[in-house]
């Protein structure tokens, strides 16, 4: 674009219009420049390409989701990882870890379901999610998984209070508590069977969109989310379970953290220009913090985890926060990438240049 072009005449090219002052449809020329801030630490991996847009307006639409949805991702992962830990603890005879993780699984799946429903435009219609089973919809598959997972995790968690419950119930209802106690293990194991799905489908959920930062990360996102689920659950387990029983949680935390960092690195280096969105703005801050926390948490575990309850809590909290940071960071990167037409147009142009147009082919 020639520099002397008066502001606001015709469609603009260049990185304008990322700033959306009044929602997606507003913006454009004369409304302030976008986020091409100088002074960022990281320089773009891919140099700015000139591109054309319609008054700097987005091509794809950012999701209408707010904090509910990354919370839902985070809580879902936490629930999944916790129920896996719970099953292991159950099978390996770690009642403290079992109890903590079973309750964590229930609590976080509760948060997960709550945020999912809360985010709906029409929460009263939440049950419509169960009208159909759609393999083409990760949200549908996920909802069904949660629907299966939730009660199972619930039974397992409630069973932790079965003895106390039994004492309080009137005699004619005590059988329920006994039944609960009997059902606890199978429920917990079944929940753990569903859990890996619960922990990873959210990665598919956001990857299965036209949001550039999410779709471009589709190869790694399931891994990132699975790893993140593991670190979160491990972190919480370390916080809530007795140090003595928390060995598996520590191990899970370390493996998860390592996997998380590797997967994130791979993701960032495979996304082309869109990876900028993981480095800039609030997403960049979150991702950087998340890496530091995850790494720090893992190191904490490695060095101090087993020795000190305080250290365990600190490391666990770091892992937990790192996981949350990952989910929130990726979420924000996606939103930002949708608002800036560059991230939609440039990769598509490159694709067309590289391999011609896309036919209906397998990726």
């Amino acid at each position, binding site marked *: 674009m020639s520099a002397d072009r008066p502001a606001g005449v015709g469609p603009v090219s260049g990185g304008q219009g990322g700033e959306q002052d009044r929602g997606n449809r507003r913006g454009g020329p004369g409304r302030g420049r976008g986020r091409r801030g100088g002074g960022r630490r990281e320089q773009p991996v891919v140099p700015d390409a000139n591109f054309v847009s319609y008054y700097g307006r987005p091509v794809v639409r950012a999701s209408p989701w707010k904090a509910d949805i990354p919370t839902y991702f985070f809580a879902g992962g936490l629930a999944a990882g916790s129920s896996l830990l719970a099953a292991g603890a159950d099978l390996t005879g770690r009642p403290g870890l079992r109890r903590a993780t079973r309750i964590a699984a229930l609590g976080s799946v509760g948060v997960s379901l709550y945020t999912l429903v809360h985010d709906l435009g029409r929460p009263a219609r939440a049950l419509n999610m*169960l*009208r159909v*089973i759609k*393999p*083409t919809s990760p949200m549908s598959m996920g909802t069904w998984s949660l629907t299966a997972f939730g009660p199972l995790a619930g039974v397992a968690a409630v069973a932790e209070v079965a003895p106390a419950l039994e004492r309080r119930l009137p005699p004619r209802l005590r059988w329920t508590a006994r039944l609960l106690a009997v059902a606890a293990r199978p429920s917990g194991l079944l929940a753990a069977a569903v859990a890996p799905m619960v922990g990873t489908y959210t990665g598919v959920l956001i990857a299965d969109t036209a949001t550039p930062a999410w779709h471009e990360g589709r190869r790694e996102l399931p891994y990132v989310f699975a790893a993140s689920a593991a670190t979160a659950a491990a972190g919480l387990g370390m916080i809530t379970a007795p140090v003595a029983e928390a060995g598996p949680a520590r191990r899970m935390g370390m493996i998860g953290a390592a996997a998380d960092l590797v997967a994130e690195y791979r993701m960032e280096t495979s996304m082309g220009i869109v990876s900028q969105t993981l480095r800039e703005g609030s997403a960049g801050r979150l991702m950087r913090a998340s890496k530091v926390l995850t790494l720090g948490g893992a190191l904490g575990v490695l060095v101090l985890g087993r020795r000190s309850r305080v250290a365990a809590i600190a490391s666990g909290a770091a892992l937990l926060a790192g996981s949350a940071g990952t989910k929130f960071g990726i979420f924000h990167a996606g939103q930002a990438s949708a608002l800036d037409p560059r991230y939609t147009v440039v990769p598509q142009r490159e694709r067309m240049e590289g391999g011609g147009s896309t036919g209906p082919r397998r990726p």
Partner: protein
Amino acid sequence: MAAAAVIVDGTDRTRRRFVDGLRFGDGLRAMGLSKAFLGWPVVRQLTGNDPLGRGAAAESKRTRSWTARTETADAVVKSVCPYCAVGCGQNVYVKDGRVVQIEGDPDSPVSRGRLCPKGSASEQLVNAPNRIKHVLYRRPGGTDWERIEAEQALDMIADRVVESRPRWWQDTDEKGQPLRRTMGIAALGGATLDNEENYLIKKLFTALGAIQIENQARI
């Protein structure tokens, strides 16, 4: 209602609907619960031709009975767009004494059923919620409107015409040539008036001797 123009569209209103895989459950339909169950899209998905639940299986009962309101209108009245002078034909759909849809009349050789944004917005023109539907009066020096009866307003206006007309009456000019007119009453009409309206306005005011009768054609 103008009888001449009312054309009620008698075409078949039933929409073509397609089998969605529910037939197998015919025998069970007697039971409400099973009906509800069989109506569950998941079941339709699993038993019909739409395993992925993206079409027939996902259709709701309300969608199935969704009908264009032009189909359920009581009458279709032939009209003409009131905006510009192209004179596009309009079909006005009426239901329960209310205009429910206005769209282009494909019969018109001038417009061939098409309308511009203004013509397309004419339903909003006639059904505007902010349209003033009552007679309002502002008295001299008044700071707000007052509501008065339509008949009262007409009487007041007639009184004022009858009063102002002689006050500004001119019988002849200074040379004694007949003028036979009043200069105290003027009118300005929009060009969305019907010919018949213009005719009566011109006729009445000319008979009253008022000559400053103008319209938008001059503007």
